[in-house]
């Protein structure tokens, strides 16, 4: 369970204060708003990439603010979308003359609040576009990708948006590339145990011993179905069978890969799983580019993991390889 808090009602405010105190080399607090912005921003002529969502997913979202990534992150309460007022205020803090791109996971609360803020900015003459991350294959069938929710694929879509904006692309181009990245990103996950909100004593859901949930959500939602617990090798196949079913047609097969821990499944376990993912993808003829085995889009202390693939082409690979620096993810130029 979540153990460290003072008053649960102050959890968000206190975590922002602590995050900014620790990582002032990347971010500063946006005055009178629930969010952070990059210390070097806003930059004239650069598209502002604004990400955000509920708290409880660190390093998503505030951990991705920095050069080569996002210009600002709007931070809601634990697992709750930020209000449109906060999205609007954060936008005003970083938007310059090149417009802004909102990029966030596709959840009704985030959609409502970011859309209301975008409308308000547009009425004031600012160019604000939106790309919603829809990578979770468990949440809707392939012909309804726009209905899927965003999970760990956020990591790749934000990276592409940030890299495109950082090199000076226009808002049209940043939007196009971000949409393209999202269209080629797929994720699937499994959960072994639920998470507990600060101040609560019971987890949001429990998984019976010897079982696991398939198609988890990153807000402690139970999975879309349940199955017997399997070995790591079997789970590697299960994740890949699902993702490879949506492998794009044609061209050489190369993919960026994130094996993401949800919070309570640790690195050593992930490496055991990764060994079989790596072997299986080699058998399938997929070249893995820059694999990341890490906790990137978490769900407090939830147990489980998700696998994300970004099917690369030349323009996406160049953006993925661009350097970036943030509290949550650093990619050196070396």
């Amino acid at each position, binding site marked *: 369970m979540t153990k460290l808090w003072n008053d649960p009602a102050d959890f968000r405010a206190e975590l922002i204060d602590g995050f900014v105190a620790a990582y002032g080399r990347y971010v500063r607090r946006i005055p009178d708003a629930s969010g952070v912005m990059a210390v070097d921003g806003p930059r004239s002529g650069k598209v502002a990439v604004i990400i955000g969502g*509920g708290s409880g997913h660190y390093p998503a979202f505030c951990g991705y603010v920095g050069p080569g990534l996002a210009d600002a992150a709007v931070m809601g309460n634990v697992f709750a*979308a930020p*209000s449109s007022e906060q999205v609007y205020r954060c936008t005003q803090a970083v938007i310059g003359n090149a417009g802004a791109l909102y990029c966030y996971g596709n959840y009704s609360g985030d959609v409502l609040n970011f859309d209301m803020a975008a409308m308000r900015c547009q009425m004031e003459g600012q160019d604000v576009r939106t790309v919603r991350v829809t990578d979770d294959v468990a949440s809707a069938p392939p012909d309804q990708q726009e209905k899927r929710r965003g999970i760990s694929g956020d990591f790749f879509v934000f990276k592409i948006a940030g890299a495109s904006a950082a090199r000076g692309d226009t808002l049209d181009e940043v939007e196009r590339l971000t949409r393209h990245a999202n269209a080629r990103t797929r994720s699937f996950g499994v959960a072994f145990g639920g998470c507990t*909100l600060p101040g609560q004593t019971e987890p949001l859901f429990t998984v019976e011993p010897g079982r696991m949930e398939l198609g988890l959500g990153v807000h402690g939602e139970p999975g879309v179905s349940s199955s017997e617990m399997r070995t790591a090798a079997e789970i590697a196949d299960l994740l890949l069978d699902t993702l490879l079913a949506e492998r794009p047609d044609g061209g050489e097969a190369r993919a960026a890969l994130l094996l993401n821990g949800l919070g309570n499944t640790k690195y050593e376990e992930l490496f055991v799983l990764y060994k079989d993912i790596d072997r299986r993808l080699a058998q399938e003829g997929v070249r893995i580019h820059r694999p990341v085995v890490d906790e990137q889009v978490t769900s407090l202390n939830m147990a489980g993991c998700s696998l994300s693939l970004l099917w690369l082409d030349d323009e996406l690979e160049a953006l993925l390889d661009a350097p970036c620096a943030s509290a949550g993810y650093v990619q050196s130029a070396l």
Partner: protein
Amino acid sequence: MSEATSVETMRRIIRQALASMEEHADELGRLDAAAGDGDHGITMVRGMKAAVAVLDANAPDAGALLSRGALAFSDAAGGASGALYGMLFATAGRQLGAGPYATADVAAAMRAGCDVVMRLGKAQPGDKTLLDALEPFLVALDAAADRPLPVAWRTALPAAQAGTAATAGMVASCGRSATLGERSLGHRDPGAVSLTYLLEAVDKVIGEAESDR
């Protein structure tokens, strides 16, 4: 009803709404955890506390007070609930304004709020949302439009309660619980439940004011 009386009544309604959300927070959280993230009770309490916190400011009329409370609610609550409840009551408050507050006026203001919620949330009755309580309530309130507001409101409440009960038999097709499809079956929608508690809180205040006469 004089302006001072109506503003004071609105203050009491908003305070009563907070008390109701605090009383039912655990239940709302449990309902939400069945198919969502379990924070609906926490969110509603956080939002209502923010609405109560702006009550002391001078308000020209009851409608303005409702709108102001709704915007404070929306900002503090966040999430889909914050946005939708905020727009529902901010719109209703704007339309209510300085009155009159006859049943037909209140019903029309609530209907305007409901229309905004449908448009923003892209939901319809039957999608297992708060609309499944609100829509039948508004139909019943309209049907009682020729009766005094406290009587009409109380007459319409069972429609909201029945609508809420019926959500247990629905499969969600909107919002976060939609992902879980069939798994949402058997549980009442937490938004319909919280809306019904809010309508009951209004009844408690205006019904008591009525019986004081």
